[in-house]
């Protein structure tokens, strides 16, 4: 029996997540790997929005910011458990994406890019300037999720690094599973259809505006949850999380690894999270090396590293 594309992708992910810790010499590696996973989660949302539906957003860090600050603020002001704050953040992000997406998704290509960039900047401005609530540029402390202590109570003792690695990896796996499910069903196919031809999509009964909006809302929830997890892990948030550099980083990760593929985008997130650590060996040339690698990948593997290499291998095979 042949394994479907979906389950082979999920198995690969699961295997890598399970096996990777065997090669972690220190707790620092857990910390980096947990960052890979949280970035992986965020870029799965970009796969749905950009890879499936063909819509660009340069403002998704705005939703990561909302998720992060929800975890910082809701426990203080609303007395919510940090876990519930994550859910609240996701709901707020979804609602905001619904409101913002409606007008801006009428735009296409770089017009949409600039409009979404504007949204992201707006969120980061609010977070920076409302310092009475958000602590301004210095950011604020985030309460402890408490789950690690509870696990220790039932006999499962994990270091902070280990704990966050497994939480984020689990979130990423669930995120991948949901996105791969979507891809096989009417909703995902409709997104890929309108990516190919909006005219034809409308002709077969797809409500193009609504489909784009749902992709935008779903991807906002991914970014929001990733932002929340990052804040809970760091126990600190600053407005940088909503900054446009972070938005561009998300898109770059996805495109570099392969924005049309969940596995590819996660790989891109891994590469761009790990490379700066590896390239520190190049000292002051670190940024140059990073830029060069990105350019070369785009020139020679336009679909992204994973789909590009797969196509090369298949081309050889036949």
């Amino acid at each position, binding site marked *: 029996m042949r394994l479907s594309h979906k389950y082979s992708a999920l198995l690969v992910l699961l295997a890598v997540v399970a096996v990777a810790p065997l090669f972690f010499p220190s707790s620092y590696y857990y910390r980096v790997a947990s960052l890979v996973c949280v970035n992986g989660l965020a870029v799965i949302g970009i796969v749905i929005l950009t890879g499936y539906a063909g819509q660009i957003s340069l403002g998704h860090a705005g939703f990561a910011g909302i998720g992060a600050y929800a975890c910082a603020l809701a426990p203080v002001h609303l007395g919510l458990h940090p876990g519930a704050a994550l859910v609240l953040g996701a709901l707020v992000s979804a609602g905001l994406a619904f409101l913002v997406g409606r007008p801006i998704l009428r735009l296409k290509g770089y017009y949409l890019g600039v409009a979404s960039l504007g949204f992201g900047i707006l969120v980061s401005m609010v977070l920076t300037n409302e310092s009475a609530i958000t602590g301004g540029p210095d950011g604020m402390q985030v309460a402890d999720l408490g789950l690690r202590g509870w696990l220790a109570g039932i006999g499962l003792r994990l270091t902070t690094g280990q704990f966050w690695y497994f939480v984020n990896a689990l979130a990423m796996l669930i995120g991948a599973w949901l996105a791969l499910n979507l891809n096989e069903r*009417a*909703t995902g196919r409709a997104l890929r259809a309108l990516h190919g031809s909006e005219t034809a999509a409308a002709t077969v*009964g797809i409500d193009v505006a609504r489909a784009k909006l749902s992709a935008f809302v779903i991807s906002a929830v991914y970014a929001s949850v990733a932002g929340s997890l990052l804040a809970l892990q760091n126990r600190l948030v600053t407005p940088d999380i909503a900054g446009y550099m972070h938005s561009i980083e998300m898109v770059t990760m996805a495109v570099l690894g392969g924005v049309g593929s969940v596995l590819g985008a996660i790989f891109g997130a891994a590469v761009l999270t790990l490379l700066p650590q590896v390239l520190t060996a190049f000292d002051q040339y670190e940024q140059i090396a990073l830029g060069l690698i990105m350019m070369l990948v785009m020139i020679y593997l336009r679909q992204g590293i994973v789909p590009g290499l797969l196509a090369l291998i298949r081309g050889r095979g036949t």
Partner: protein
Amino acid sequence: MSTETGRPLLVVEGLGIVFGGLRAVHDVGFALKPGEIVSIIGPNGAGKTTLFNMISGLYMPASGSVRLDGEVVTGMASHLLARRGLSRTFQNLQIFPAMSVLENVMSGFHLKEKGSLFADLLNWPTARSRTRAIEAAARALLARVGLERAAEREAGALSYGSLKRLEIARALALSPKVLLLDEPAAGCNATETEEIDRLIEEIAHEGTAILLVEHDMKMVMRISNHIVVLDHGEKIAEGDPATVSRDPRVIEAYLGVQQEGSHAGG
């Protein structure tokens, strides 16, 4: 004849549109009954595709009305028309090139497959079984247009003639009451044209009303119940194939050109 009875499914009245001073279509009307094949003919630039675009909700008509199965649907969005049983193909091909051939046709079943977003995200059994059912139906449609062996191929890699048939299969997936075909045989070889010809008659026989734009006059004259002739956006003649082919204005505006210049492109 069954085509003579029954109330019309599609009624177009006084339809018109202007593009920057150009009256691309002006005061065009006709009616289409179940099982009937009505053809729109006319030279290049006569306004045939523009007429299709107005009926299928891509262009907002400046004047006139379109009624589908008794309901006024003038200028209604395409996806809403699809729900009401109107489906079409495109002269310049509108496929989903990155999808497999099978998925292109499965997209045509969107309205039948679509459930709740959460059922799709969570892979609920109801969503799974709907996809399985429409996949089988899509394969059957591919077999019907002779593309079953290309099912798993990427659509963008298919030949022009195959893509024409793929579009028909996708349009049929909606089980349309009214089907608009814009030059379905353009760019097809003789065998393919014959197959498409046979397919169109079959579809009409099942009760679908067909509006056809086609430059292949042999095909048009053979399968049409009624022909509307457009020139410079206006209806210059109409009637059954025999009447239309004898009309002097038609011969001058269209058929004459055909005979001298052999093929009309498009």
